């Protein structure tokens, strides 16, 4: 069983992290950095304003970057018949989805946390704010990954599924965003704890909701 989990994870990481034609982890990171770069251009070189709002911009950019790979998460495997073959081998949809949440997080969570360093420099954030942003991203991005995989499974096979999944993720990501970005204002641990709690709920739901969605899509 462990060997199978490992084989699934290795394949998911090769597809999502390294990417091949899909761009892998590079695309969300570059998107994230370009948003962080554009923001000072848009609001002007007002250093106090940038420092005050920069943390929130990083959060919005992270959320939008997490949406980018959604259409590659579940649908291709349904179309290829991978889920059929896994089911025949006794590998449940729940397990595949759980592994995919891990792989999806690894392919955008840590890279975004790294990219937040240059982004913070671009926005002129101080060290304390940056620390809260980084801890917040560590607590919040797993939830965003779980949410992304769940919604990708729900919209797999629908016409315009990619656009629809983006629209569905944004409102459901609001709790993570409020607590995550909110902890910047208070600077407190309570906001980060609530971010982590919202993340955990999403992670706990994802394998079951996603697995049921894949079975429904298979028909």
């Amino acid at each position: 069983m462990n060997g199978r989990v490992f084989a699934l994870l290795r394949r998911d990481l090769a597809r999502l992290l390294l990417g091949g034609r899909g761009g892998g982890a590079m695309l969300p990171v570059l998107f994230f950095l370009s948003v962080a770069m554009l923001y000072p251009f848009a609001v002007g070189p007002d250093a106090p304003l940038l420092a005050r709002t920069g943390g929130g911009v990083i959060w919005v950019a992270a959320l939008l970057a997490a949406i980018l790979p959604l259409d590659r998460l579940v649908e291709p495997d349904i179309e290829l018949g991978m889920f059929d073959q896994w089911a025949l081998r006794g590998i449940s949809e729940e397990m595949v989805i759980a592994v995919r949440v891990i792989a999806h997080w690894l392919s955008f969570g840590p890279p975004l946390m790294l990219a937040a360093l240059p982004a913070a420099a671009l926005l002129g954030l101080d060290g304390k704010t940056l620390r809260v942003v980084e801890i917040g991203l560590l607590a919040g991005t797993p939830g965003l990954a779980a949410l992304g995989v769940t919604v990708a499974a729900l919209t797999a096979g629908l016409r315009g599924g990619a656009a629809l999944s983006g629209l569905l993720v944004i409102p459901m990501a609001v709790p993570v965003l409020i607590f995550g970005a909110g902890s910047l204002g208070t600077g407190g641990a309570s906001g980060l704890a609530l971010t982590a709690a919202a993340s955990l709920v999403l992670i706990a739901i994802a394998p079951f909701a996603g697995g049921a969605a894949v079975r429904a899509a298979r028909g």
Partner: protein
Amino acid sequence: MLFSHLSLALNAGEALQVAGHNGIGKSSLLRIIAGLAPAFAGSVSVEGTVGLLDELPALDPALPLGRALAFWRALDGLAEGGQAGDELDRLGLASLLDVPVRYLSTGQKKRAALARLLGQKARVWLLDEPLNGLDGHAVELAETITAQHCAAGGIAVIASHQTFRLPAMRMLPLSDFAVREQAA
């Protein structure tokens, strides 16, 4: 509703061809046997592992064929290189292992899917239009491989409108069980 009152039992070593025109439900019957689709009524019981070969190759299009097959070998618990090289040779795939799956022709993909099925070592084979896209030589090869599978105590259910030559194969004309459309 596609068909009703259908009852069949297959013992080790037996093969069955499900025949019938397009859209009559051959693929649906196979997916019901595989447990991938629910039957509206009735039950299916299968002893042993089930392998399915249908129009979906289930091989990553971006990967070289060798690595795409290696993924399934790992899942099926075969050691690296566990699939006998002569098996790939026999299927004419040995020279294609470095070619990305998306560049393979329909027939080559079908043969690759056959290699995946062989590696699974499943007891029950469900073959959905296994001869689609295969040339004359490959058709014979697929028939020989299936015959050997049955001779070794395996079961094969073949859904095809083409002739599939197997010794002592039973036929199931699905049209006999088709549910007639009720006139409104």
